C-alpha cells in the first residue's frame, strides 16, 4: 500500500521534470493553429508562421514566466500551508502539547547522549596528531596475563630496533608529599622518560619540556591545576624549588615547566618527575612496571607497527627464552585504551535513546493518523474539488515539521537538564564525561534530528491522505461497522513495534538493574558500615627506611585515634582496599620447586597494624592474627588471605608453611588465614595477598587508618584529621572519608548506567503505553457503531471489555514476542556492562515482559471501559 503510493509520488516527481517538454509541445500546437489561421487570412506560409511567432512572443520569456509562476505559487502555498498548519496545531492544543512533549523527550535524550558521546569518544585527545599515539601492553596467554605493563628491557629493545615509531615513552606512578609551596599536599605524581611530552605531543605552557639529553635529575614539570592551587598562577614559578620530603640528594626539585590546562594525563596528575631507563640498570626478568606509549611515524599504520613489534617480540623470545617466553606486545590507539571501557556502555546508550525516539515517532505518527482519519472527509472534499495531491500532502509535512521543530527546541531544554544531571551524577571514572555540554555541533545535531523527525512523521499521514479514494470517504459518510481498513493495519503495526522496542529497552534496563543488585550484594570482605578512613603520609627524610620511628609514630596515631569518643577500634594498612593502589611482590613457597623467573609467584603485599583485621571487620579463617609477640626482632610471620591459600597452597595446611624469596622481608612463616577482601574493585575477586605486621616490615612511610566508630563516621572526620595533623609537622593527612564513599566510587559507573538505562526503559514503557492507549481509544471510537449494536443486542459489559482487550492483547503479545527475540540478539552487546547476570537471564525477561504487559493492558483498560458506556441509541441515530 505504502510502496504503491511511494511509486506514485516518484512518478509524479519525474512527470514534473517533463513539464518543459509539455510546454514545448503545447506551444508548438498553438503556433501551428495560429499559422493555419494566418494562411486562411491570405498570408504566405512563411509570413503566416512569422506573424504567429510574433503574436506568441519569445519562447524563452514564456518559459521564464512559466517557472516564475511555479516559484511564486510554491511560496504562496508554503506560506499558506504553514499558517494552516499552525492554525490546526493551535486548534488541537492538547494533541500538540502531547506530541511536542513526546518529541522533546526523544530528541532531548538523544541530544544529551550525543553530547556525551561527542565529548568522551569523538573529540580528539588534547594532543598533537593524537591518532598517532598508541598504547603498548603485554600479553602472555600461557600465564593468562593480558593488558600488563612493559618490562623496561623490552622498551629499550623496541626503542633501538623498531622503525615504526617516532618515539617510545614510558612512565610509572608515584604519589608524593609536596612541601615548599602554600601548604603541604599529597599529590599524584608520575615519573616519566624525558621524551614523554614529545611523544604525547604536548608543549608546556610556561617554561620548557624535559631535554632528551642531559636533563638534570631534579627537574620537574607541574600541572596547570597544581600551579594555580599551590603557586597562585604565578608566572615566576619556573625556576622555583619544591621539596618532596625525601632524603637529601633527591629531595629538592626545580620546576622547569607548567603544562597547559587541557592536558590532564592520563587522569589527574600534578607532578611529572623524570626517570630515564638505563640499559645498565634494567633487569630483563624484572617486573612489568612501565606504562608505555609510542608515537607512530607519519604514514605508518597501527597494523604495520604491530607486525614489526610482533617480529621483535619473537626475536626476544628466541634470545631470552627464560624471561620472554610467551610474551607478546599489543598495540592499540591510546584513545581506545583510555575510553575503551566507557565505549560499550555509551554505544548501548546511543542505541537505547534511538529506540526511545523511535517510540516517540511511532506515538506521534499514530496520533497523526488518528487525526487524519478524523479529517478524511475534509481531504476527500478538497481532492474532489480539484486540489492536487501534492498540495494535500504538504500541510502534513509542514504540520509535522512545525511540531518537530517545537519538540526539538523543548528537547534542547531537556538536554540542558540532562547534561547538568550528568555533570553532577556522572562518575569520575569516565574521562571527560563532565565536559559534556551543549555546543554548536550538539545544537546542529538537535536541529537535524528535528528535521528528520518532521520528515519521518509527515510520511505516513501524507501517504494516507494522498491514497485516499475520494468516493470512499465521501460516500461512506458513516464510520465503517468494523475496523479492517489498511490504515488500521499500519497503526496496529506501529503499536506492535512500540511494544517490541519497549520490551527491548526494559529487558536491557532489567539486566543492568539486576547487575547492580548483584553488585550491592557482594561482600567486600570487610565491614564498611561505620568505618572511617584517613591516610597519613610521612616525609621519607624524617622517617627513613628501616627506622623504628615509623612504626612508633603509627602506633602513637592508633593510640590517639582510639581515645576519640565514639571510636571502638583503630587499625592501619599500607594499601587501602578500593583505594586504587596495590603492590605485588614475588615470593617462593619453601620446599616447592622453583618457578622459572618468567612465571614466579606474585601476591599483593600489605603492611598492617596488628589491630587492622579487627578494626576492619575481616574474619580469621585459620591460625591466628598478629599480636604483640610479633615485634621487631621476633621471627618474621605472615597472615595470608583465602585466595592465597587456594592459589598457592591448595591441599596443604597453610598455617606453618614458610615463604621464601630473594628479598629478606618475604621470608617467614604463615601463621593465619583471613577472609578475602576485594581490593581492586567490588566486582573483582580478591587476588592472593599476604599481610605483614608493620613492626616487622620496612614499612611504608604511608599508612591508611581505618577507624571503627559507633556513630556516623562522617562526624569524626574533623577530630580524626586534627589528631593526625598534630602528630608530625610534615605529615600530610589525606583521604579522610567514610569507607562507604570508596564503595560508592567503585560502583559509580555502574550506578550511572543503572540510572540511565532505567530512565530510558521507563520512558520507553510510558511512551509505548501512551501509544497503545491512543490506538485503542481510537479503535473504540471507530467501532462505536459495532459496539453500539452489540450493546443494543444485549452484550454484557465484560463481553465488550473482552472484545476490546482481545485485540489489544493480540498486539501486545505479538510485540512482546518480537521484543523478546530481538532482546535475545541485542543484549549480547551488553555483556561487558553486566555483572554476574547472563544476557538471557530468564527471570529478568519474565519480570520485564510482565511489567510491559501489565502497563500496556492497563493503558487499554481505560478505553475498553469507555466502550461499555456507549449509548447504542444515540450512536446509531447519529449515523
Amino acid at each position: 500500500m505504502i510502496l504503491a503510493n511511494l511509486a506514485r509520488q516518484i512518478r509524479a516527481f519525474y512527470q514534473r521534470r517533463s513539464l518543459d517538454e509539455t510546454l514545448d509541445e503545447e506551444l508548438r500546437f498553438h503556433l501551428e493553429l495560429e499559422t493555419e489561421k494566418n494562411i486562411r487570412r491570405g498570408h504566405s506560409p512563411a509570413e503566416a508562421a512569422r506573424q504567429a511567432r510574433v503574436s506568441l512572443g519569445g519562447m524563452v520569456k514564456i518559459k521564464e514566466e512559466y517557472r516564475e509562476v511555479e516559484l511564486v505559487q510554491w511560496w504562496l502555498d508554503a506560506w499558506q500551508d504553514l499558517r494552516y498548519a499552525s492554525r490546526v496545531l493551535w486548534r488541537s492544543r492538547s494533541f500538540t502539547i502531547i506530541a511536542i512533549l513526546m518529541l522533546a523527550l526523544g530528541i532531548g535524550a538523544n541530544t544529551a547522549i550525543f553530547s556525551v558521546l561527542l565529548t568522551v569518544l569523538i573529540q580528539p585527545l588534547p594532543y598533537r596528531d593524537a591518532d598517532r599515539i598508541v598504547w603498548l601492553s603485554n600479553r602472555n596467554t600461557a600465564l593468562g596475563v593480558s593488558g600488563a605493563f612493559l618490562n623496561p628491557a623490552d622498551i629499550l629493545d623496541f626503542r633501538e630496533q623498531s622503525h615504526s615509531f617516532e618515539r617510545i615513552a614510558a612512565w610509572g606512578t608515584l604519589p608524593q608529599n609536596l612541601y615548599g609551596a602554600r601548604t603541604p599536599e599529597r599529590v599524584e605524581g608520575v615519573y616519566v622518560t624525558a621524551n614523554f611530552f614529545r611523544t604525547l605531543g604536548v608543549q608546556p605552557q610556561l617554561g620548557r619540556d624535559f631535554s632528551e639529553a642531559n636533563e638534570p635529575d631534579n627537574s620537574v614539570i607541574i600541572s596547570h591545576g597544581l600551579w594555580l592551587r599551590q603557586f597562585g598562577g604565578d608566572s615566576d614559578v619556573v625556576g622555583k624549588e619544591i621539596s618532596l620530603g625525601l632524603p637529601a640528594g633527591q629531595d629538592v626539585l626545580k620546576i622547569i615547566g607548567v603544562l597547559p590546562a587541557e592536558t590532564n594525563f592520563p587522569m589527574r596528575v600534578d607532578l611529572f618527575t623524570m626517570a630515564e631507563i638505563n640499559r645498565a640498570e634494567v633487569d630483563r626478568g624484572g617486573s612489568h612496571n612501565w606504562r608505555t606509549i609510542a608515537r607512530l611515524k607519519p604514514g605508518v599504520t597501527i597494523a604495520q607497527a604491530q607486525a614489526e613489534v610482533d617480529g621483535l617480540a619473537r626475536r626476544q623470545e628466541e634470545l631470552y627464552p627464560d624471561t620472554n617466553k610467551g610474551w607478546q606486545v599489543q598495540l592499540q590507539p591510546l584513545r581506545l585504551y583510555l575510553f575503551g571501557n566507557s565505549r560499550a556502555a555509551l554505544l548501548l546508550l546511543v542505541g537505547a535513546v534511538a529506540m526511545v525516539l523511535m517510540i516517540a515517532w511511532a506515538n506521534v505518527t499514530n496520533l497523526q493518523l488518528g487525526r487524519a482519519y478524523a479529517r478524511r472527509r475534509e481531504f476527500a472534499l478538497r481532492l474532489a474539488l480539484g486540489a492536487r495531491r501534492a498540495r494535500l500532502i504538504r500541510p502534513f509535512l509542514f504540520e509535522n515539521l512545525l511540531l518537530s521543530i517545537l519538540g526539538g527546541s523543548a528537547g534542547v531544554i531537556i538536554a540542558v537538564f540532562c547534561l547538568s544531571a550528568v555533570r553532577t551524577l556522572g562518575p569520575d571514572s569516565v574521562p571527560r564525561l563532565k565536559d559534556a555540554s551543549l555546543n554548536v555541533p550538539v545544537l546542529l545535531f538537535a536541529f537535524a534530528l528535528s528535521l528528520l523527525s518532521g520528515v519521518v512523521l509527515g510520511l505516513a499521514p501524507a501517504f494516507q491522505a494522498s491514497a485516499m479514494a475520494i468516493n470512499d470517504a465521501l460516500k461512506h459518510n458513516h464510520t465503517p461497522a468494523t475496523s479492517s481498513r489498511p490504515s488500521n493495519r499500519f497503526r496496529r503495526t506501529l503499536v506492535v513495534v512500540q511494544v517490541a522496542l519497549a520490551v527491548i529497552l526494559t529487558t536491557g534496563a532489567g539486566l543492568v538493574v539486576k547487575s547492580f543488585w548483584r553488585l550491592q550484594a557482594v561482600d567486600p570482605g570487610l565491614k564498611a558500615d561505620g568505618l572511617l578512613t584517613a591516610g597519613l603520609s610521612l616525609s621519607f627524610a624524617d622517617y627513613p627506611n628501616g627506622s623504628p620511628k615509623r612504626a612508633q609514630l603509627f602506633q602513637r596515631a592508633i593510640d590517639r585515634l582510639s581515645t576519640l569518643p565514639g571510636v571502638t577500634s583503630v587499625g592501619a594498612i599500607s594499601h587501602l582496599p578500593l583505594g586504587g593502589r596495590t603492590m605485588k611482590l614475588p615470593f617462593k613457597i619453601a620446599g616447592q620447586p622453583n618457578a622459572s623467573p618468567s612465571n614466579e609467584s606474585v601476591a599483593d603485599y600489605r603492611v598492617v597494624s596488628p589491630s587492622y583485621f579487627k578494626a576492619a571487620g575481616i574474619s580469621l579463617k585459620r591460625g591466628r592474627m598478629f599480636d604483640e609477640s610479633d615485634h621487631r626482632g621476633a621471627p618474621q610471620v605472615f597472615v595470608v588471605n583465602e585466595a592465597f591459600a587456594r592459589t598457592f597452597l591448595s591441599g596443604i595446611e597453610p598455617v606453618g608453611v614458610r615463604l621464601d624469596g630473594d628479598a629478606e622481608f618475604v621470608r617467614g612463616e604463615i601463621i593465619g588465614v583471613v577472609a578475602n577482601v576485594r581490593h581492586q574493585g567490588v566486582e573483582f575477586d580478591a587476588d592472593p595477598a599476604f599481610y605483614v605486621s608493620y613492626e616487622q616490615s620496612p614499612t611504608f612511610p604511608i599508612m591508611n587508618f581505618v577507624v571503627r566508630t559507633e556513630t556516623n563516621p562522617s562526624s569524626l572526620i574533623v577530630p580524626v584529621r586534627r589528631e593526625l595533623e598534630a602528630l608530625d609537622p610534615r605529615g600530610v593527612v589525606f583521604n579522610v572519608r567514610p569507607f562507604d564513599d570508596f564503595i560508592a566510587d567503585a560502583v559509580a559507573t555502574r550506578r550511572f548506567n543503572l540510572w540511565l538505562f532505567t530512565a530510558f526503559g521507563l520512558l520507553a514503557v510510558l511512551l509505548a503505553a501512551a501509544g497503545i492507549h491512543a490506538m485503542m481509544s481510537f479503535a473504540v471510537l471507530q467501532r462505536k457503531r459495532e459496539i453500539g449494536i452489540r450493546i443494543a443486542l444485549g452484550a454484557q459489559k465484560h463481553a465488550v471489555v473482552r472484545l476490546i482487550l482481545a485485540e489489544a492483547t493480540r498486539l501486545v503479545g505479538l510485540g512482546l514476542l518480537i521484543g523478546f527475540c530481538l532482546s535475545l540478539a541485542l543484549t549480547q552487546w551488553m555483556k561487558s556492562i553486566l555483572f554476574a547476570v547472563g544476557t538471557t537471564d530468564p527471570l529478568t525477561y519474565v519480570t520485564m515482559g510482565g511489567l510491559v504487559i501489565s502497563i500496556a493492558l492497563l493503558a487499554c483498560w481505560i478505553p475498553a471501559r469507555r466502550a461499555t458506556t456507549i449509548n447504542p441509541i444515540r450512536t446509531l441515530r447519529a449515523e
Partner: protein
Amino acid sequence: MRKQKDDLLQGTLDLLVMKTLATGPTHGWDIAQRIQQVSQNVLSVNQGSLYPALHRLELKGWVIAEWGASENNRRARFYKLTPAGRKHLVAETAAWERVAGAIQLVLAQG
C-alpha cells in the same frame, strides 16, 4: 496594440480564461481566440502570457489539464474548470461586477 495587451491585468486574464472555460474544456489557442472574439477584438490576449496564466490556475487547483485530441485529431492539451475553479469564478465574477458597477456609477455621475 502591443501596449493595450500588456495592460490586461493579471487577475483579469485569469478571470477571462476561467469564464471561457466555463462553457467547456478547450485548448490554449482556442481560449485566446474566443476571448478575442467575444470581446469583439477590444481585448487582445497576449498569447505569450496565456500559458503561464493557465499554469497558475492549474497550480491553484482551479483548472486541470489533460491531453486530448483536437478537432482535427491532433494531440492538444485541454483545460477544464474544476468545481473549485467554478466556485472561484462565481465569486470573482460577482466581485468584478460590483467593482465595475461602482465605477460605472462614479463615471455616470461625473
